[in-house]
Structures are given as C-alpha cells and as structure tokens.
C-alpha cells in the first residue's frame, strides 16, 4: 500500500465540520488529548508501518 495523498473523503466540508465539532468546548489540554487518541486510533486502523512512516514524513514537511 502507498500513502494516499489525493482527495479521498466524501463531503470534505461536512467532515471538517465534524472534526471541529468534536473539539468544541474543550480546553487546550482536553483538545490535545482528543487529538492524541484520534491519531492513535487512526494509526492502528492503518496498521501498515510503511504507510504510517510516509504519513509521518508528509506531516513533518511544512
């Protein structure tokens, strides 16, 4: 598998909304904790170490 960096989420605006909604009302610490849990859940779902490494590299490049 290779890391998919093309559009892949249906209704991107809707998804973005849900992402922000999950953080609503949380202070910084709680928000950071939520993000961390989310990252771990998604990483586990992906599982493939190659893809995860590519994702880390892509995210690290700014």
């Amino acid at each position, binding site marked *: 598998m290779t890391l998919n960096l093309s559009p892949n989420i249906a209704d991107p605006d809707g998804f973005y909304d849900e992402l922000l909604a999950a953080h609503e009302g949380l202070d910084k610490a709680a928000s950071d904790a939520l993000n961390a849990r989310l*990252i*771990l859940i998604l990483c586990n779902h992906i599982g493939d170490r190659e893809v995860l490494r590519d994702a880390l590299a892509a995210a690290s490049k700014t």
Partner: protein
Amino acid sequence: MVDVRYDIAFRLYPYERVQTQGAARQRVPVVIVGGGPIGMAAALDLGRKGTPVLVLDDHEGVGQGSRAICFAKRTLEIADRLGAARAMVDKGVVWNVGKVFHGADQVFEFNLQPEPGHEMPAFINLQQPYFEKFLVDEIRVAQKEGAPIDIRGRNAVTGITRHADHVVLDVGTPDGPYQIAADWVIACDGARSPIRDMMGLSFDGRVFEDNFLIADVKMTAEFPTERWFWFEPPFKNSGQSALLHKQPDDIWRIDFQLGWDIDRKAELDPARVRERVDAMLGAGADYELEWTSIYTFQCRRMKKFRHGRVLFAGDSAHQVSPFGARGANSGVQDADNLAWKLDLVIKGLAPDTLLDSYSAERVHGADENILNSTRATDFLTPKSETSMTFRNAVLDLARRHAFARPMVNSGRLSVPCVYDGMPLNGPDALGGPAATRVGAPCLDAPLDRGFLLNRLTGHFTVLSINASAPDIAEVDGVPVAHVTLTTDRNDPTGALAQRYLGTQPQAVYLIRPDQHVTARWPGCDTRAVTEAVRQAIGKAA
C-alpha cells in the same frame, strides 16, 4: 587495606591470606575481577571446561539488598547448563498475571501464560543475593569435582598494567598488597568498573533524570502473586509510577518513581518510607522494611568490550535502566558468549581474534537492551508535554480498546538477542522456522526423555533431525558432539518439529557451545560441518 562498601548477605568466600603472597609473582591463565553474578557465571563456565580461573572480589560474599529480582528463561537455561538452575527455580516465585493501573483505575490485566514445552519457566522472581549464592554453591560442587576455580574474597584490584602477552594486576588485601599476572582478564567489576576507569575508557550514554525509591518489605498479607504497576498512582506522595511485585520469603518489591529534584537522605528516612508504603498498602498493613535504596538510572555502554587482553562483561560493559530486567539477564549472556571462546583461545584451538566476535555480538545485544529499556523509560517518564499527552492517551484507550494495550510499556521482558548477520555465522540453508534461524539461541523442546537443551552441554553439537548425521568427531582439535533424533521416536509433543523443521522433512543444525545456532542445512556432509565450525571459531579465510 580493602574498603568495605556494602554489607554482606551471604559470606561465601571469607578472606584467607594468599599463600603465594610475598613469594614470586604468580602467573595464571584468567583472572576475573569481580564476583557478582556475571563474574561467577563466567568462572563456573570456564572452570567446568577445565580452564583454570581465579576470581578476585573485594568483599567476602554477596552484597545485601536485592537489586535484580526478575530472571528470564534464557538466564535460567544458561544456569541450567552450568548446573545451578534447579535451586533457582525451586526458590523463585513464578508469576503470570500483571495488572496495570492509571490513577485508581485498572487499565487492563494480562496473563503471560508461558508457551508449553520448555523446561524453564518464562521468568522467575528471585532476590539477586540468592541468584549469586546458588552460582557460588555450584562452584563449590564443581571444585569438588576437580574444576580449577579459585575465589579470593577481600582481594581488591587497585592497579592494572598491560603488556603484549599478559596483564599485571595490583591487588590489595588485609595483609597488604601483592601482584599477579594473568594471560587474560575479565572485568566483571560492575557499573562503576574501577578497571574501566584505570584504563581510561569511556562509558557513554544517557542518564534519566529521575530517582527511584526501592523498598523491599516483608509481609504475609494476602496480596496475590501478581505484578501490579501504577501510572500516576493514587496514593499520597507516590510519585509518577509505582510497582508492587512478589519475591520469595514473603518479600515484596515496591518501587516509587520520585522525580529528579529530591533530597535523597530525607527520602530514605524510614519514617518517610513507611509513610509512602502505608499509603500504598492501606492503613494497618503489617510489614517490616527489609531494604531500601534510591537509584538513578542510565543507559550506556563501552564502545567495545574487548581491549586487548582485557574483556569487559556485565554492568562494567553496559548499563541499562531496570525496566525490563535486562541488566543481570544480559550480563549472564555475556558470560555465556565469552566463556567458550576464551576457553578455545587459551587451549590454543582458536585464534585470539575470536574474542573480537565476543565484543561484536554482545555490543549488538547491549544495543538491543538499551533500546528496549530506553523506550520503556520514555513511556514511564514522558520527556515533553506532547509525549505525556500521547502516553496518557494510550493508557486511556487501553481501558476500552485492545489495540492500545500492547503500546503500554512498563518494561518489556528480557529476551535473548539473535546474532543476525554476525561474522561467525555459517549458512542458513534450511528454509526452516525463523525462531531457530542462524544466530538465534536454541529453543527448548520436550523429547521422549528430558528436554533438548539438556543435550546441548557446552560443546559444538550437530543436531540431526530425521537426517543422517555427518561422520565427524572434531574439527582441528575442537570436539563436535552429536544429538541425533527422529520425530517419530523422540518428539512426543511435536514441538521439536514445529521449532526446528517447520515445513521441512529433515534438518541438520550446527549449534555453538552457548546453544546458539551457527548453521543449518536440510542435510550435510562432513566438509560443510568442518567449514562452519572453522567459521564459528574465527578461522574463516
């Protein structure tokens, strides 16, 4: 004069005036400096092979206070080859269930059911003084059987001079100093190794800015024989993590992680220690403090473990934080790796360059151990806000979701390293199971009588399974033993086939004296074995 740096738990080698002191300087093949677990294991191994060894220790026995408590299967298998494991297993506590807490809540529980078909348990808890005592007890047995092992208590090495073909040691005793010459020196003198310092060698790595209070308490309370580990424990003043773990003799090991800026002396005040222990065990718990100490931990190693005629083994060569119990366990593997090589070199059967492979293989092992214990320490003491956030997210998720549990790291169990890609390795031509690949330590398996590892007694051994054994008894004077088995007759549980054949119908393994696989084939002739033995004793062209 010889300083007494610690109290003795077992006085096993009382000081006696050295007979030759004052006479001409003695010259011996091997001096082992330091009679801790690693020095004693090396002495027993070499002595049992008939190579004379002299152990010099600056105390008269085993230090009080248990440091190591957790001894892994591979260590017990090595001790078993040396004859000392029975006493250890009989005395030790076997445990399987562990519980992990975060604050007051249990995050999850695990059961390390051992894989069946191994003679030794996956690990035991045993106070280090007992471990050392059982090794020395076995040395006494070996001595009676004629093994040339000599132990001198309260003989402190104070100086070292290296020559091309020998080493001279200055030794201090209550009757004054003397000198002794040795062809080879094994420095098993612990993490603060005076020998390493005298030779001006570096010991680099990482210090973890944390203090751990260790309290061994004696109580007959009805706690189950389990390992309980708390992240951010709920009881008062218990620091960032805590551990409760059972040892023999109704002793419990309690660890508190206290942080960096502490007043060591104040923290060791028994009243203060009791306050903490009371908070953990609950008011009214009835116990005695057996032993308390505060440690800071580091992960570091020497660049190489061989310096000419001086070989470093155990904590003198590498130090790890104790999470994962890799200190003594890996040191015993050093001794296991070194003893047969040094024995062959001393007997003139192998070139001294064979000892370079000791350094290469055990540096590889040390790096693996340091990596593991560094990772555990990073999980226990997150170094930044973000790593703390991730750590707690893992603990949070682990309560509800199985996927996060393997990420919880309160120390990984010590497993032996595989000497993958090392220069002594011969061909891996079998297409057999990965677990017994070339470089790996042999896995045990029950046979029709006894266990496989009992048959691998410290010689090069050709293990033939369903294959005809090549006709060979020695290579250049190095004896080659044979264990010839068939799965029909000798493999009652199928474990032998599963661990050594996999999908193959037959196999021939060449196994080193330290029970590591050094070559394997579907079948082979004497030439192939000869070449692989030569390779394994450092004679490859």
